[in-house]
Structures are given as C-alpha cells and as structure tokens.
C-alpha cells in the first residue's frame, strides 16, 4: 500500500470552510450540509485508509512522518508543519473523524431550522481541522496550534447563540479558563525547549532522558505545567468549571467538542508525552490523584443536577478524570481505550439528549420529562444502550475500558485511587440511571405545550444514534480476549507505549484476583443501577426522604460545592478590583496621559503643516516644481 496522504485529512475540512466562505449563502442549506458532511466523511475515508496502511506495516515501522513544509527556523530551533501517523494518532483520527462525521450528519437534522445554519457548519468544520491538526501534529508546537484552534472553535460554538447573554458569558468563561491552562502549557513547552532544544516528538523524547535527571525538579515542573494545560482543556480540577457552562452551546457541539473530542485533547497530550511523564514520578502521582479526585467530585455533583445536559457535562468531567487516572497509574493504553469508548457512548448520550430536547421543544429540565420511552422509542433504545455502557455493565463498551483502568490502578498499587474509582463507578451508574429513569420512565411530567409538539426526531438524527449505539455495544470488544496486556487494542498501541505492564509499575495479578476485581466493579455498577431504580421509579419518596434527611449535603451538591462562587470571591473579584484600580490610575492617568500628550504635541505641529495640504493638484505641482528648481540651483552652486 502506498504511503497515505496525511495532510489531506485536516485539509479537507479546512477546504470546506474556505469553500463555504467563498460561496456564501449561494450554497443553500442542502449544499452547505452536503459540503460539510462530505468533507468530514472524505476525511474519515482517508483516515481509514491511513490506518490500514499503517496496520499493513511491520510493527517497528509503524510511525510515518510527513513534512508538509518548513514552518520556522530560528537559530538551532526549527519547527515544521509535519504530521505523524502512529498507532496512537491513528486511533485519534479515526475517533475524531468517525464520531465527527456522525455528529455532522446529526446536526443537519438538529440545526435544520436554525437561521445560522451555514455559520454553524463553518465553525464545526473549522473545529475538525484544528482537532485533526492537534492529533496529527508531529511536534508540540503544531499541537499547540491545533490546541488553540479547538479552543477558539469551542468559544465560537458555545457562544453560537450569541444573542443569549448566558451563552456569550459561557463562551467567554470557557475561553478565559482555558487561557490559564494554556499559559501553563506554553511555559511547559518553553521549559522543554530550553532543556532539550526541540519540540519534535522523536527528538524531544530521545533527548529527554539525557537532558533531565529522572525524578528531578526540572522535569517535574515541566510536566506539571503541561498537565496544567491538560486540566484546562480536559476540564479537570481546578479548571473544570467552564465545561458545565459550555452546555449553553447547541447540543451537537456538546457532543462533538465537549464530550467526544476536544476535551480529550488533554488526555491525548499526556499520553503522547508519556515518556516525559514517566521521567517524573511525582507528576504521574499528581495526574492520578487529580484524575481520581475529579472523577469522584464531578460524579457527586452529577447526582443532584436537574438539567439533562449538565448531568452529562459532570459525567464527562468525571469520565475524563478516569482517563487521567489511567495515565497517572501508567496505564496509558487503558486511558486511550477509555477515551475511545467514551467518545462513542458520551457522544451518543449527548445526541440522544439532543433528540429529547428537540422533541420537547427545547426543554432541558429533567423534572419536566418522564415517560418518554413510548413517545420516542428509537431515542429511548439508543439512550438505554449508552447508559448501560457508561454504567459499566458487560458486554457494553464502557465496562471493558473502565475495568481496565481500575485494574491498572490496582495492579500498580494505587489502592486508594482504585477505591475512589470504584466509588465513582457506583455513583456514575446511579446518576446515569437517575437521568434515564427521570427522562424515559415513570409518569409524564411534560408540559402541555411540549406534549402537543412531541415527535420522534427525523432519520438524519436517528441514524447516527443507531451507529453510535452499535459502537457503544461492540466498541469494547476490541479489548477481547480478556487477557491483560495482550488484547488487540493494547498490542496495537504497543509501538507507542511499550509492552503492556512493562512500565515497571504493573504487577501481574493472579487470575483469581482479576476475576474478583471484575466482579466487584460489575456489582458496584449494578448496585448503583438498582438504587437509582428504587429511588426514582419504585419509591419516589425515597429520594425526597434522603434529601430531607441531609439537607446540607443536598444543598451542597445542587450548588456544586459553591466552587463557582468560591472562585469568584477568591480569584475573580480580587483580580477584578485590582484591574479596576490599575485601569483608573495606571491606564487612564499615566499610559493614556503619555499617549495623549504625544498626540497633542503632534497635533500642534500638524495645524501648521496642514496649511500645505490644500487638496488642489495645482498647489502640489507648484511645490513639486519649487523643489526641482531648488535642487537644480543647488547643483549649479557646486
């Protein structure tokens, strides 16, 4: 098989953006939809071709670099626009283009009546371009370009309905919070380039062991800074607050950007830099602890939210926590595995939620749903698959990947992390089935108006749901046969991460303990499910009773631990006041004063000079001749 064209994969969506900009509204809605979906679909086809070509190569040769052009050359430092295809980026481009394509198709139905149809697909395609650049980049600098690009698209798409103040605010919040993380990322890159002199993956990773003392301060600081960037993009403690607010965007956006692809960029980056992180055990511990804490923390908040999309948002944060947990304990393959399955079922959950919201005429409150199973049979069936998948019941996809993460935590001796992960799994199963029961089962609490318009979504929305449901069901089977360190997915990633369990931290476990672990996690999931059914279907008073028994706890959860308010008081307000002061004094008095002073000076000059500028050609000709004569006379004197 010939070498795949890598640059064309991100270039196709970009081309669609350019074409859409050039042709404008002349394309019409159908044309726009075809263009956008076609570009991403073609991108997917090329990605499949590239992955097949990669698979056809021997294992040692599974790394293809394609230099598009020399980007910059500054002294010893050089950066190329170059794309790298290896097993890891192959998985990423398949997930991004595949899920992205389905979501594009879904959007043609979901956004069908939106007046800004074209703008939506423009941003969506731009996002695809940036995301594919991010995952295909062969150096951290180009990755950062994609990283900022997806951030920008995220901002644009969260604030897509910019006439709604809350959406505009949410977009700004996402952008600004991400900026903090990006600052860390930038510093991390600078640290790396200072010590190793390169940001190109191969050069960087091979230079790192010599440039850094393993476990030393320099590498720890550098990796922690990189991780700070990851916490911003992937919504981890402490920079997670933007993601729930990001739900103000259209639902397909939540599915694509804030569930399946962009937010996993942090995980991808950490996995990509795994050899750096492995040099800094402290950083890895931090990653694991932050991941575990986020997984549990977000799950508890998810228990008490009533907005269907916010429940899913907290669930996303929690699941991202699991991925970081996996990276932190050294099970990078498991993290990427979970990233993939999560992309399937979380995209499905969001799209299903979108279908519900669509059917209910933009109602998002779980308290005004219920009994939708009959009315929306297809949505219901697919949502149920996704819910089971995320809860972690075999043989659905989520089970395999989540179990592998828990196994990794246990096998590497992180028992505390494991326990937190298990508790998180129970909570996940509980709040996801709470969502399912409140939305689809029991009696209807739908308002009259919405009831009247209640309808199943069009095929363009249902078909992607179905494809994703099938993927959520079978996507985990790539983790079969159920052998540690030996299943196809892990073997596929081996050229990148090294042999499974070979990081020195994984102890092989006896089969009995393995089965025990599996049973424990399945039982945990079932426990959560049963409890959710009891509390919200069989005996609705149970939930109320619990709420009344611990009102403080409930208030705390509903208010999301007052983190937003706390951050406001501790960080935002002091900054705001300080800025206010700076603005009033430094900016207005000194900076503006200096600028205006210079301005006045020149204005004075200009008043005189302006007399010459009459605007009449004749005057100008006169002065021209005067100059010529003066010049000639000057020569004459010599």
């Amino acid at each position: 098989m010939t070498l795949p064209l890598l640059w064309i994969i991100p270039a196709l969506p970009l081309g669609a953006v350019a074409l859409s900009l050039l042709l404008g509204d002349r394309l019409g809605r159908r044309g726009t939809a075809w263009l956008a979906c076609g570009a991403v679909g073609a991108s997917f086809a090329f990605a499949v071709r590239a992955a097949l070509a990669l698979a056809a190569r021997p294992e040692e040769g599974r790394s293809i670099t394609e230099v598009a052009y020399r980007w910059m050359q500054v002294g010893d430092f050089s950066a190329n626009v170059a794309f790298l295809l290896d097993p890891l980026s192959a998985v990423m481009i398949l997930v991004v283009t595949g899920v992205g394509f389905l979501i594009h198709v879904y959007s043609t139905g979901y956004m069908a009546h939106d007046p800004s149809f074209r703008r939506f697909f423009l941003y969506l395609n731009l996002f695809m371009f940036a995301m594919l650049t991010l995952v295909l980049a062969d150096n951290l600098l180009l990755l950062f370009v994609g990283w900022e690009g997806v951030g920008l698209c995220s901002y644009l798409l969260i604030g897509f309905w910019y006439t709604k103040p809350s959406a505009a605010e949410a977009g700004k919040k996402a952008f600004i919070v991400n900026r903090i993380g990006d600052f860390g990322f930038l510093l991390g890159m600078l640290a790396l380039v200072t010590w190793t002199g390169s940001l190109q993956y191969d050069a960087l990773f091979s230079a790192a062991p010599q440039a850094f003392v393993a476990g030393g301060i320099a590498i720890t600081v550098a990796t922690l800074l990189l991780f700070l960037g990851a916490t911003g993009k992937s919504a981890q403690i402490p920079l997670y607050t933007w993601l729930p607010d990001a739900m103000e965007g259209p639902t397909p956006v939540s599915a694509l950007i804030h569930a399946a692809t962009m937010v996993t960029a942090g995980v991808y980056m950490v996995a990509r830099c795994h050899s750096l992180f492995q040099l800094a055990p402290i950083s890895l511990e931090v990653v694991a602890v932050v991941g575990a804490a986020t997984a549990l923390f977000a799950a508890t908040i998810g228990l008490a939210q009533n907005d269907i999309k916010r429940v899913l948002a907290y669930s996303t944060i929690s699941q991202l926590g699991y991925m970081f947990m996996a990276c932190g304990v050294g099970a990078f393959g498991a993290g990427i595995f979970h990233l993939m399955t999560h992309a399937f079922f979380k995209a499905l959950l969001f799209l299903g939620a979108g279908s519900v919201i669509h059917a209910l005429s933009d109602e998002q409150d779980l308290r005004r749903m219920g009994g939708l199973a009959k009315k929306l049979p297809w949505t219901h069936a697919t949502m149920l698959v996704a819910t089971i998948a995320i809860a972690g019941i075999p043989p659905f996809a989520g089970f395999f990947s989540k179990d592998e993460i828990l196994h990794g935590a246990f096998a590497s001796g992180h028992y505390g992390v494991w326990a937190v992960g298990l508790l998180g799994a129970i909570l996940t199963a509980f709040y996801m089935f709470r969502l399912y029961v409140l939305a689809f089962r029991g009696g209807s609490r739908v308002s009259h108006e919405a009831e009247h318009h209640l309808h199943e979504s069009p095929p363009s929305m249902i078909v992607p749901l179905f494809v994703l449901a099938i993927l959520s069901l079978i996507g985990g089977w790539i983790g079969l046969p159920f052998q540690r360190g030996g299943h196809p997915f892990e073997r596929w990633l081996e050229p990148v991460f090294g042999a499974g369990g070979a990081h020195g931290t994984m102890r092989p476990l006896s089969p009995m303990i393995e089965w025990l672990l599996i049973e424990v996690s399945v039982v945990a999931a079932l426990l959560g499910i049963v409890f959710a059914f009891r509390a919200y279907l069989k005996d609705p008073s149970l939930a109320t009773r619990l709420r009344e028994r611990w009102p403080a706890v409930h208030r705390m959860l509903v208010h999301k631990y007052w983190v937003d308010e706390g951050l406001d008081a501790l960080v935002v307000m002091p900054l705001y006041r300080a800025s206010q002061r700076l603005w009033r004094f430094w900016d207005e008095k000194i900076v503006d004063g200096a600028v205006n002073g210079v301005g006045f000076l020149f204005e004075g000059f200009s008043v005189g000079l302006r007399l010459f500028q009459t605007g009449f050609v004749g005057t100008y000709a006169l002065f021209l001749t005067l100059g010529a004569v003066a010049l000639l006379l000057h020569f004459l004197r010599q």
Partner: protein
Amino acid sequence: MSAPMAVPLSWMLALSGVVFVIGLIGVLVRRNALVIFMSIELMLNAANLAFVAFARQLDSLDGQVFVFFVMTVAAAEVAIGLAIIVNVFRLRETVYVDEINLLKG
C-alpha cells in the same frame, strides 16, 4: 549615418528646454484639467526631442527606442487619463482642478 550635423546639439537641447518649461508653466497656471493634460504631453515631447537629438549625436538607436516607448506609454496614459477626466466630469460637472480637492483628507 555620420553626416556632419547641420544643427548643433545645444540648439536642439535649448529648444527642448524651452518647450519643456512652456509645458510646465501650462501645468502650473491652468485650471482646466484637459489643458493641463495637453501641457503634460508637451513636456513629454520636449523630453522626446532631447532623446532624439542625443541619439543623433551619439549615433545610436537607443534614444529612438526610448522615444518609441515613451510614445506608447503616452498613448496608454492619454486613454486612461481622459477616461478619468470624463468620469470626474460626470460626477462633479467640472474639469477645473481647483474645484476638485478630493485629496484633502
């Protein structure tokens, strides 16, 4: 070619200079854009005359080739310039340059 020159070069140059200055004065003292334009043509032709005179003096065709180009440019320039003047006249109902001060910011 190298027949003795009947007319001294300096006479030709003096004539060229005089015509040039006349053209220049035309540009400076007239307000009618068309007349200014004609004066510019005069200046161009004065320069052409100098070129041809030098070509004769130096027994070289370079000067004549140059004049040829100047004429071509002048032809193109006249076409464009007149088009602009016509356009300005349509807009402003005048060809007097001192009634057109669009250059003044």
